[in-house]
Structures are given as C-alpha cells and as structure tokens.
C-alpha cells in the first residue's frame, strides 16, 4: 500500500476517484525503468538507490507516480534490505567512540582510530576474520534505514507493478473511510469464504442483510463504530479490498471523512450556505466488480477439500431438478456469518443449505455445531463423517435430528437428495 502523501485522489461531484495508470507503452516503460533500477541496485546501500531514484524523478511534476511505484518496489514483497556490518552496529559504535574519547576529536585522528578499532576487533574475533578500517567506517551506522543494503530483489513484471499501483491508490481511499457497505449480488460460486476470512483477520465486524436469491448487503466497521463513526478501521478496510476483488459480483460504497480544509473565512462568507453544506458533506467512494483492479492475494482454492470437489462432481452426473450452487449463501450469526459449502435450489422455490463436516479437531467441531445451532435455521443440512466422534467433542447429534446425513468415505448425492426432500416436504 502507499502512504497518504503519495496518493493521487480527485474529487468529482462529492465522490472520490483514485488515480489509475493506463497500461500504455509510456507507463510500462516507466515501470520497466524503475524495476531495472532496483535490479541494478542489488548489493548497494539504500541511500545510493534513493539517489538514483531522485535523479530519475528529475524536475518532473509526475514525481509522485514515480515515487509511488518505487515505494511499492521497495516493499517486502519485492525487496530485502539488510544491515551489513562487521559487528552489531551499536557495539561497534561503543568500541569506536570509546577509543575516540581518549583524545581531542579531530578529523586527522580518524584513520588511526579506525585502524585501532580494526585491531581491537580482530582480538575479539579469534576465528581470524579481519575487518578493514573502511569496513569499520561503513559499518558504524549500518543500522540506519538508509544504510541498509538491498540484498535481494524479486522483480515483478511492469504490468504487475502497475496493477499493484492502481490497487494501492484505490486502497488509499479507505484510509479515510468510516464504514463500508458491500452489496454482493447473486452469483455462483460466491467465494465469500476468503472475504470473511479476511474480515475476521482484520478484526472487522459486519452487519448482514439479504438472502441468496437477491444478494446480500454487508456493512463493515469495527467495535467502536457503534458509538461514533471512526476512520480507525480504514486500514483494515483497505486490506480487505484485494480479498473483495476475488468475489465475482459486487458493488461497494464507502463513506469518507472529508479532508481537512484550510480555513478561509473571508471567502466562506460570500458563499451560499447550501454550497458550503455540500462541500462539508462526507464524500463517498464507489467501486464494483469489473472495476479492472487486480488482486495480488493468492486466489481462493476452487474447493476447500477433496470431499467437496468429489461431491460436486458426482452431483453433476445426477439427474435431478435440484441445482447445486456453491458458497452462495451467508447465514448471519452474531459477530460473523456462516457460509455453507453448497446450496441446493429446486425450480419450485424450495432450497436447502449443505455443510460438509469432514475431518475436524474436537474444539473446531464444537464451535461449528454451536454456531449452526445459533443461526437457528431449519434449512441447513449437515453431512457428517461417521468417523467423527461427536460425543467426544461435546456435540449432541440428536439436536439436529433429520438434518444430519452420515457418510463413510464418500458422500452419496442420493442420500443428500433424500434428506433435502425430507426436510422440505410440504
């Protein structure tokens, strides 16, 4: 992501539009130049690289773009910076400065002092490794960020770098966001699991409304948002965006804190009140699937397990009016949501959710059954492996009655079908 001062955001009719670089020849060439600059800088200090980058920025007013691209390249995903010194720099400083304190400071004593330090260091390192006075001088402040050495660089392609940049500009909008409303439209597979994994990881809370037929509205914010709007969760919302890009059909709308304006009382007085009000209203940011932004998060796996995959394959061979849909439903439970693996939909309007419970640790099992019970839904079928010891996990299977389909080895679609018919019989 990018720091605020490298964001290039424009305001248009109360909504915010982040900068988007086109994948044209000029931009690709610029990205290529920067990538090559980093590749050439391997083995050099960061300050040397920075000087090259400043020279590359030149007197161009587009320096922000170059600086932004360079900022991303210097990040952990591509670059490794390390401290290179003959001794831990604080210890080295202590050694050198104590030697220096024995006389009157002057530049004329420098070479002699560095040699003394090298000699002293040789005594403490019996493995015979000798440091030169130059290495001592270089190592003295080697732990400053600008003296770190670029020891490895994994270059992205110019295209990947520009995608990353465009994504980072959009993520930057969320730094000022105090809530985020996502509308997930009906589609299959939903790929909601990945999204919710990140919602939990970043400590966000959600309010969910809607159903599988019409789509869902998710409002995301944090614990303290209940009392007052807070931009505190903006960074977490920004990190969520790459996960959201992996969901197929959605729109989002974020409410943003207005930028702090310079006070300009003289001109404010002559303005119309209405205009002032509009200017002070919270700007918004809108985005939708098909926005062209590209996620760099690992793509979600097609299926969570071989069990699910095999079941879906067998269902495809079945001749049944029930259609199998994947991960399309969100069942809200307090503080989170359950995302059942499958949904079975009948053309007559009946539907059933299916969760496959394969191999899990007892603690996880208990949590899973507890949250399904809390959801209070009668239309969730549980396919449970007969190998699981529910009792040992403290789960009472009779709570779920006919909604449990036991299976050994592979899950039979016919058994699921029968159970679906049974619990939806009218």
């Amino acid at each position, binding site marked *: 992501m990018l720091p605020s001062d490298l964001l290039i955001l424009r305001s248009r009719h109360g909504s915010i539009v982040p900068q988007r670089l086109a994948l044209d020849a000029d931009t690709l060439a610029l990205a290529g130049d920067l990538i090559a600059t980093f590749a050439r800088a391997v083995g050099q200090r960061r300050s040397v690289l920075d000087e090259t980058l400043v020279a590359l920025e030149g*007197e*161009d*007013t587009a*320096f922000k773009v170059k600086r932004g691209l360079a900022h991303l390249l210097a990040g952990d995903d591509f670059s490794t910076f390390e401290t290179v010194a003959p001794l831990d720099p*604080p210890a080295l*400083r202590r050694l*050198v*400065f*104590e*030697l*220096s*304190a024995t006389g*009157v*400071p*002057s*530049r004329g*004593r*420098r070479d002699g*002092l*560095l040699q003394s330090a090298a000699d002293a260091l040789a005594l403490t390192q019996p493995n015979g490794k000798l440091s030169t006075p130059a290495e001592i*001088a270089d190592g*003295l*402040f080697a732990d*400053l*960020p600008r003296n770190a050495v670029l020891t490895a660089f994994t270059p992205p392609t110019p295209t990947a770098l520009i995608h990353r940049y465009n994504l980072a500009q959009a993520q930057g909008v969320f730094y000022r966001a105090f809530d985020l409303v996502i509308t997930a439209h009906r589609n299959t597979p939903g790929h909601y699991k990945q999204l919710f994994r990140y919602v939990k990881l970043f*400590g966000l*809370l*959600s*309010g969910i409304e809607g159903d599988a037929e019409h789509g869902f509205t998710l409002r995301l914010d*944090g*614990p*303290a948002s*209940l*009392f007052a709007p807070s*931009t*505190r969760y903006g960074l977490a919302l920004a990190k969520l965006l790459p996960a959201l890009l992996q969901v197929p059909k959605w729109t989002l709308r974020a409410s943003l804190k207005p930028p702090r304006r310079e006070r300009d009382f003289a001109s404010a007085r002559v303005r119309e009140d209405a205009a002032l009000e509009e200017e002070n209203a919270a700007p918004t940011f809108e985005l939708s699937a098909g926005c062209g932004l590209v996620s760099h998060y690992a793509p979600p796996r097609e299926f969570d397990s071989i069990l699910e995959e095999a079941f879906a394959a067998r269902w495809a061979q079945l001749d049944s009016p029930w259609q199998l849909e994947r991960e399309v439903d969100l069942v809200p439970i*307090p*503080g989170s949501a359950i995302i059942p693996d499958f949904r079975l939909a009948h053309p007559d309007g009946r539907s059933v959710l299916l969760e496959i419970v394969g191999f899990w640790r007892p603690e996880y099992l208990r949590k899973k059954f507890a949250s399904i019970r809390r959801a209070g839904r009668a239309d969730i079928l549980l396919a449970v492996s007969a190998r699981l010891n529910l009792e040992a996990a403290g789960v009472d299977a009779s709570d779920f009655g006919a909604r449990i389909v036991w299976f050994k080895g592979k899950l039979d679609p016919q058994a699921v079908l029968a159970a679906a018919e049974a619990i939806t019989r009218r």
Partner: protein
Amino acid sequence: MPRLPTLSYDRGTLLLHPPPRGSKAWVEFVEWDDRVEKFRLPAGGYRALVSALRAESVTFDDQARAYGRLPLRFANPLTPYPHQTEALAAWQSAGRRGVVVLPTGAGKTFLAQLALAAAARTTLVVVPTLDLLQQWYGELRAAFPGAAVGLLGGGSREFEAPILVSTYASAAAEAERLGNRFGLLVFDEVHHLPTDFARVIAEYSIAPYRLGLTATLARDDGRERMLAALVGPTVFSKTPAELAGLALSPFDEIRLRVPLTPGERARYRELVARRDEFLERHRIRLGSLDGWRRFVRASGRSAAGRAAMLAHRAARVLAFGTEGKLAVLEELLARHAGRRTLIFTDDTAAVYRIAAEFLLPAITHETPVKERHETLALFRSGAYPVLVSSRVLNEGVDVPEASVAIVLSGTGAQREYVQRLGRILRRQEGKRAILYEVIAGETSEEGVAARRRRSEGRELRPSVGEESTSSLFDD
C-alpha cells in the same frame, strides 16, 4: 441459575453479557450492538459503570480489567515544592482525574512520579517525542527502583511492562491492545491528546485514574475542550509569573561567521537566483507561512516550480553543511578540549556527517531509545566528553549538563531553542559556560540571525569575527 453477567474488554470497548437482572443501573451506560447481539459501551465508561453496579450490589464477573495494584518503592530524594504538593492534592480530591497546568521547568515529571506513587497501579505514560520517551524512562527507573519500566516506541515494544512509557503515535496505534492493562494514564504535554488520531488512547482505555500535564492548554482549533471528557477537568493551574524564581546561570554567547568558499558562494548565488526568479514571477514572498505554502503548492504543479523548490533545498543544504563550518568546529573542539561539549545541528544528515568524520557519538530521532539512554549516561559520566545531536531540545526535554554548546546552524524559529540550550549550560572549573552559534556568511541564515536579534529588541552590532553578547537570558 442464570449465568453471571460478565464484563469483557473488546478492542477499545466493553461488552456486558448477559445483562444483569433485577437492576437497571447499567442501562444508561450501554448500547445494543446488533452485530454481536450484546450490550456494548465505550471503554472509557468502565469506571462509571462499575461504580453504578457496585452501588446496587450487582454481582458480575469483571473479565475486562487486566490492570492491578502495583506496590512501588518511591526513591526520589527530592522534597516536593508547595505547588507540587498542592497540585497532587487537587488531583487526588478530584478522584484522581484531571489536568494540571504548570509552566515548563516547574517539575511536572516529579509531580507525575508523586501521582504514580499515590495511585500504585500499573501505569501508561504517554509523551509526544522520542526525547521525552528516553527522559521519562530514565527518571522513572531511577525513581522506582525494582519496578519494571518498559518502552513502546523508538524501536521498543515492551507491552508486558507494568509501567510503560510510550509515544502518542505508538500508544494510538496500539490503543486496542493497551486499553485494559493500565489503571493510571499519564499524558505528558496533554494538549497533544485531542486529535482524531491520538484521542483513542484515552477513549479505548478503562483506566479509572488519569493525569494530564501541560504548560499550555491552548490549541488553535479549540479542541482542548475535549480534554474534560478524555482526562478530566483542569484541577490545578499556575502561570510562570506565579512561580517566578527559577534562576538561570549566566553564560556567554559567541557568534561565528564562516565564509563560504568561492565555489560554494557562486553555486549558492546561482541556486538562490533560480529560486527567486520563479518566486518573483509568481509574486510569492517567502517569510510568511502563507508564502511558503503557496511555494509548496506551486512546486507540485509545474516543472518550473519544482525546479525552483529543488534549487531552494540545494541552497539550504549548501548553507548548512559548508566545509568551513566543519573546520571551525574542529578548532573549537581543540580549544575546549576536556570540557563537556554538546554539538547541535538542524538536520540529521549533518549529525551523521560529523559523527562519521570526527568519530563522535551521535543522537538523532533515529537512535534507538535504549542506546540514546546509554549514550547520554556515558556523556554525563564523562566517558564521552563530546556529543553530537540534532534538535534534541524540543518540548521540555532535559539535556545533560555541558559547559560548551556549539550550534552549527540556525533558522528564524529557533529563538526559544537557543534559550533552552542556554539553560543546560553550567559553569565548569570556574570557567563561564559558552554557547557558540556558527552560521554561514552570506546566506539566508545570516538574515535569520539578524532578524532574530532585532525581534528580541536588541541592537545588532556589526559582526566581525567573534561577537559576544552576554546575559541574553533575562526572561
């Protein structure tokens, strides 16, 4: 039997679940959170809620509170001044909540130590700068021997410490994590608290006891009013006039003008001309805040503006880092060999240049706090006779005593900075303390120094070589 109502801490808020039965004392403090289907309240409401529940003898399980009593051995040998005793008493009788306003140098740190000893709870001390971080760290360790004092910020992350000193930036970033661990919050320079970023330190905390310290409550946005809710009301206030009598030792100030080399001078003139040409064309006058702002804005808009800004920066670097200044520095260090000497520069790059060329210990904002602490200790003990630093002297920082100070550059806003520097100087072996201000000849710095003197209402005497103006600090 119904489950016991439990109060738990959730990232800067509190959850009360299940709600207590047979009492309505809690209702006014909480809000229903539909997202988790529980009652929630801001962490800052902890003290009020717990008092209300106790008043009605409601039994509940307090899982929120992770702070505790902290037996402290208070070893500070100083006797409090009357104003410190009065301030402490005022804070205590206000329920150990509130803000104390005392001028710089009136012993706010010592007052905070008294409050810590009185409250005897795990404590979070929040300070605005890394310099203050190290100062508080050192003083708390000395005042409470045996107590584990930890740091958050400046490269340290010691969350477990029962007395934790943190910067506002780090404490705000970790507010959710810190919120239930401390019974007492101390805010140094508390006027830094009421910002959108920092206020969460107070809002996300359940700490019942809070102390804010400052020399001035005024902010230009009027947000100091928020402090009553975040920390408590102003419980004690004294102006500098009311506490007059803080003596300063006299010292000599000597200004040295260092000419640029002919090459540097030519380059400097060229850069300044390039900048001024742009400024004139756009009718921008530097020197006012607005002019500077317009210049910054213009530099982002056009190639010419950007070139002018780059020229301006290059000229400044030239003026601040001249070869001649280093030669003068060398001469001064030789002249005062053996005396405890502090060297100050405006920018970090110059500090490291001097440190690397003279092999002298340095302290900048980049120095890890623990190393800074050690380095200052070595300077105080005399093991390091000379120390180089960038502007260590910000708000109310204690700098070690020295008898010679050498300031290698200056800007117009620094009058107060030099004054504070003067306060650290002490006589040594019967010699008067000396403060050198080394400026480059024929640069903007000269104008700044002149303006500074005029604004002080002093006559500017022509300066050739050395100029001595003693007893400047009669405020």
